[in-house]
């Protein structure tokens, strides 16, 4: 083949390659009406992205989105971990981009910069998520032997009571929640209780099942005082345990309950 022909083929090949590359994405994660789609019909729709503080001076985003990657059983999302190829999530993230990767190869499938969809007039609200090291080392262990993803069920059920902050560390997934009020019985009028949870998994994985740990911070407050304090009040501790039991039962039945 002569040199001009080779040059022509090189130009055509390079041009074709460049055309096939995805165009640079605009900063549209903040717009809830915009969907990301491409040749593989993948869709990511950010429903809301609101700046919050998870501790004083520690900003994050409260994020909600729907996504679908047809033909893929699982995808990996930064901060959240490996999740099914289609779903809807709502959680708190410290990430500045929402990144979907192929679960096995790590190839980037979608990358969206995160920005506010709602600008709060005043300072962003404090959505306190206790750091992992503030949770007591004592934990309760539960077995997850269901075919559904624990992460997916947790997202559905935790979202009814808390906001949660998922993160990964050394092949472990941690879901740290905000505080939620407890329904107390057998305590004097004016006493309040609240609980925050840290779910971590997987532990002792064997085929089809593994354990997950639940650690809890239980605090006591008063209706006429501002601050909540760690408690040893047996009634409040018992209410927190009951709440955790009900939450886990709800997670295990969440898939069955859905139509």
């Amino acid at each position, binding site marked *: 083949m002569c040199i001009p022909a080779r040059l022509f083929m090189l130009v055509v090949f390079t041009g074709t390659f460049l055309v096939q590359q995805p165009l640079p994405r605009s900063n549209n994660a903040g717009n809830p009406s915009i969907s990301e789609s491409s040749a593989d019909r993948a869709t990511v729709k950010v429903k809301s992205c609101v700046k919050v503080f998870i501790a004083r001076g520690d900003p994050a985003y409260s994020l909600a989105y729907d996504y679908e990657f047809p033909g893929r059983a699982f995808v990996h999302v930064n901060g959240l971990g490996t999740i099914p190829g289609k779903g809807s999530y709502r959680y708190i993230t410290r990430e500045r981009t929402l990144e979907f990767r192929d679960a096995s190869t790590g190839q980037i499938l979608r990358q969206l910069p995160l920005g506010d969809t709602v600008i709060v007039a005043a300072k962003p609200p404090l959505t306190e998520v206790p750091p992992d090291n503030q949770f007591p080392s004592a934990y309760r262990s539960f077995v997850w032997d269901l075919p559904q993803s624990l992460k997916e069920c947790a997202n559905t059920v935790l979202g009814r009571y808390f906001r949660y902050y998922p993160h990964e560390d050394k092949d472990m997934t941690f879901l740290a929640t905000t505080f939620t009020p407890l329904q107390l019985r057998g305590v004097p*009028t*004016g006493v309040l209780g609240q609980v925050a949870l840290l779910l971590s998994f997987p532990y002792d994985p064997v085929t089809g099942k593994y354990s997950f740990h639940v650690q809890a911070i239980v605090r006591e407050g*008063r*209706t*006429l*005082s*501002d*601050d909540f*304090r760690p408690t040893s009040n047996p009634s409040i501790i018992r209410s927190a345990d009951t709440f955790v039991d009900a939450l886990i039962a709800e997670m295990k039945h969440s898939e069955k309950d859905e139509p």
Partner: protein
Amino acid sequence: MTMNRARYGLMGIFAASLVIQLTCFFVVRGRMWPEDFNGLILKLLEIYSAQLGLVLGGIFSQINNPRSDPPAAICWTAMTLVTLWNLLLVGRSMSFSVAQQDSATDLIKYFDTVGSGSAFLVAGAVAFFFGKGTEIAPANVRPGPSSK
């Protein structure tokens, strides 16, 4: 209205307001942390200490030296102003004690700002009725050079 009746009336308003507020706080003390309860009581006593100190001091120091009766309009004006000042505090304290949820810290801030900021309402009345410098001349006697 006699001077003594006006004095005891003003003292009664201060004392009754203080007792009402203390009762409110004692009734709901289980609904706040002990430190907040102590802080509230101390702040309330601190606010009333200035007024009640003058009132009691005036009453005890002049008990054997009664002054002539002031005009009724002055008495009623003083009563109204003192009642108004106390209502500002009693109203907030009562709403605090019946609220489903409130903040003792906010109430202490309220006492700090409103209690001291509105003290001008009572300062004049308390000084007039319980201070030593004011003498009421009899109604039909004009003050002459000797009265200076």
